């Protein structure tokens, strides 16, 4: 296993917690260091600079040559840069790698004000990180509300309000035009497309990521945005596979995207490819979509598909708690009543149940009446199911009765 980024595998999703002092670097490594040798996995800390597909060998920056029988390319992503003037100045960076984290750590003591460009999941994490060091944050979001290209407007608003509550200067429908040099080769201010100048000593570029395929872009390996693969993760070259953020399906599996850049899909791809490599050829066959995130203090989970806007033939129900920090959003097929997906904010839900409901195409009524059993919040938390169901019945004209809590496993068998 070769990586130039770090000696040992670490959890990329936890980078923010190292910066914020919740954990040390060692704590975000999912396995202790002895794990790899014990499991006969040899680690090489080095950058691969070229691949010779004919002789099945790779060369690393330090001059090593390694032979392979099968090669798996899991190169990950890199932050998008859209050719903004000044994007290569010092104190201008994305947040993706360990090196990014170290750079950020190094500039932080000099930063009083920061601007973050791009309102997505990494942007909001970066905002939280900088705030934890007392840095004032201006957050430029291209959309109408935070992440409203992915979230329905109600949820996007709810999160936007929460971001404001954390004293982030959140600017909607605002884009970066250029970054201004402070005279020392470092960022000194930014200018927005509307012409406003915002002084800052740090610019975070978090306008999405794209596959990190510089290594293979101009080789005989077929690529588009990412490395092109079939559902068995096979690339255009025999014995070369690709998974994770850098892989692009020629034909996505039903209901999925060609590029899937999240932790969970990376894991599922890895599990599946391992079967193939061990002689049990398997196609990528993920279950119903799920994802999660945390926006400052509000947790988000999603099961199935809830789009930013309702698709044709879909019906929806949205409930928001009076305090405005919890909500759920249900979507189902209007004609058949089949449950399509849920967004839940501030209320944890049980993955197993939703997975089962989505797979067996349960009706929305079934989901709603069992919300109490599907709740995954810690004990002693307040419950809102009666309120939710009453609102659901009012809005949909249906008449669903809340079922008392049953052990969730028992629901799987019915």
């Amino acid at each position, binding site marked *: 296993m070769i990586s130039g980024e770090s000696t040992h595998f670490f959890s990329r999703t936890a980078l923010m917690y190292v910066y914020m002092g919740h954990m040390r670097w060692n704590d975000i490594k999912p396995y202790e260091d002895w794990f790899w040798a014990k499991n006969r996995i040899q680690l090489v800390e080095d950058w691969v600079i070229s691949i010779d597909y004919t002789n099945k060998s790779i060369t690393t920056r330090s001059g090593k040559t390694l032979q392979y029988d099968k090669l798996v390319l899991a190169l990950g992503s890199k932050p998008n840069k859209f050719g903004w003037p000044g994007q290569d100045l010092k104190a201008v960076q994305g947040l993706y790698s360990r090196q990014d984290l170290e750079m950020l750590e190094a500039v932080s003591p000099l930063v009083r004000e920061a601007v973050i460009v791009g309102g997505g999941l990494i942007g909001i994490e970066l905002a939280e990180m900088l705030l934890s060091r007392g840095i004032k944050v201006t957050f430029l979001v291209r959309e109408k509300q935070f992440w409203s290209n992915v979230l329905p407007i109600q949820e996007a608003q709810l999160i936007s309000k929460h971001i404001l509550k954390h004293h982030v200067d959140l600017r909607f429908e605002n884009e970066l035009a250029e970054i201004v040099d402070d005279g020392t080769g470092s960022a000194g201010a930014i200018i927005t497309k509307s012409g406003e100048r915002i002084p800052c000593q740090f610019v975070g570029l978090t306008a999405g990521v794209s596959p990190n395929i510089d290594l293979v872009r101009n080789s005989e390996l077929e690529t588009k945005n990412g490395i092109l693969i079939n559902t068995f993760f096979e690339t255009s070259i025999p014995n070369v596979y690709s998974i994770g953020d850098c892989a692009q399906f020629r034909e996505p599996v039903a209901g999925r995207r060609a590029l899937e850049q999240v932790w969970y899909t990376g894991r599922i791809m890895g599990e599946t490819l391992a*079967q193939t490599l061990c002689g049990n050829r398997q196609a990528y066959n993920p279950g119903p979509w799920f994802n999660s995130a945390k926006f400052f203090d509000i947790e988000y989970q999603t099961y199935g598909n809830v789009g930013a806007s309702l698709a044709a033939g879909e019906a929806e129900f949205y409930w928001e708690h009076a305090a405005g920090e919890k909500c759920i959003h249900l979507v189902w097929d209007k004609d058949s009543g089949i449950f399509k997906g849920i967004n839940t904010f501030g209320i944890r839900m049980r993955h197993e149940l939703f997975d089962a409901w989505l797979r067996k195409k349960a009706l929305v009524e079934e989901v709603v009446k069992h919300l109490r059993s599907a709740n*995954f919040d810690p*004990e002693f938390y307040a419950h809102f199911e009666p309120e939710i169901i009453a609102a659901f019945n009012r809005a949909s004209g249906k008449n669903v009765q809340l079922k008392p809590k049953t052990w969730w496993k028992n629901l799987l068998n019915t």
Partner: protein
Amino acid sequence: MKQLKYIGLTLFLGGLIVFTLLVFSGNFRLTEELMRSNLSEMELTNLGERMSAEIVDKNYTSPVSFGNAVIQIYNETNQQFRNAQQWDRVMYTPPKEFALKLARVASTGWIPAHKALLFFLTFGLGIIGALLFVLTELKLGGPAGIKNNGIYQRAATNRGWVGISTFIFLVSFYVLLYYFPYALVNCTLAVDPVKHLFNPADTASQWFLYGFLYCVVMTVMGVRMIIKYRHNNYQVVRTVVVVFFQLIFAFLLIEILPLFDLPARDLKNAWPLDYTFLFEWNVQQLLDSGHFGKFLFAWGIVLSLVIVPVMVYFYGKRWYCSWVCGCGGLAETLGDPYRQLSSKKLSAWKLERWLIHGVLVFAIIMTFFTGYLTYNVINNPDMESKEYLVGISAYDVRELYGFLIGSVFAGIIGTGFYPIFGNRTWCRFGCPLAAYMGLVQRFKSRFRITTNGGQCISCGNCSTYCEQGIDVRAYAQKGQNIVRSSCVGCGVCAAVCPRGVLKLENGPEQNRFGNEGPIVLGNNGFEIQN
């Protein structure tokens, strides 16, 4: 708000400094009359002459110098008797207790004359300061939610100099408390006003001081805990309950029961954590104390052998460790800032299993010996050397246990090392009751921590903040439930998880371990066949 916080800190440190200075200051002068009225007849015969010549009417300026002088005479005299084989004259009061008793009465001057003021300058300032400090978090900490910012960047919580100083302070306190209680005599004077609320005729012992301090610390740090987790009802309820049990059962009842001539016992303290339960003096005292005493004796047995395992079966050992227990209560309140310091290494887990089960075996053997002695004392009063079983004295066994486990492990290492090894060192490596409940929890219980399908992102917050050093992530990232004997069910893993992956719950034993294969929910491709 920030200023208020620093004022709080200053007041708190002020209280702490006064408290510490008390160990080094004071005036001690034992008059002839005081000596005569405070020594027993035997002590007077044995020690009176030397004490009159060497100590009486002399001025000492610290409790330690006074206490050491007293102990020297006491020990030397005893040694003479031993050398002369005059066994009937040897005195058996522990010298440290003897010194404490005299130091109390010999204390003169400003300190004993201003107990109430001293109480204010130590406990008063400490409580007000600490409360100010933690209450400002409500504003300074931002909206409710998990705010572990800076924990690994602050010297107090990352084994930095503040942590090391705290560690030295705590260990010193325990060493004084257990082995040199007379050094704390001024501190006991400072809590006399509290003791007098219960019994105006009585004075505060070092154990009253400790018990009171324990309650104060747990309450103030409990307030901190509740503020920190105010968005999490499990934590709020649990903290209120565990502090309640400490205040009512471990403190108030202990003070109140004797006022009615009833034996003072902590009703929630279960064997083998309560290792003196079968000691002959305990059993005798209980059996001699009428119906209530007999009830306590029966209660102790039922609690340990029936209530504890049955409750663990239904709710896991958390019902005790995180909701009721005093040691656990201190760990969950005072110890909360240190929970991340417990080692998550596999090697630590291996050590843990040997140690804690070793202590359990030791506790059982010790209880067996002492039970034999107690049986003889009650049923064979005429028997010679009742304490000897297979040539070993029950007194020796339990003294060793009391020293190694009762004070060094539970006190000095258990609490003193909070800032170094984390807050549950005793509960994880040493507590025999935890070991006993752990066995039940692991093999026969409805409790587990459920992992929410495939939602884990392997971030490591759960493992980091597990005070028991469980590598929670190792299970969660594989979609497995967490079923571990050491889990005390504090619920913090579930609280800090940013993806809502963990839930403490009680459910059918069937399928308790959840997904056992390495393939995590969300992958429909295939299953691992067993």
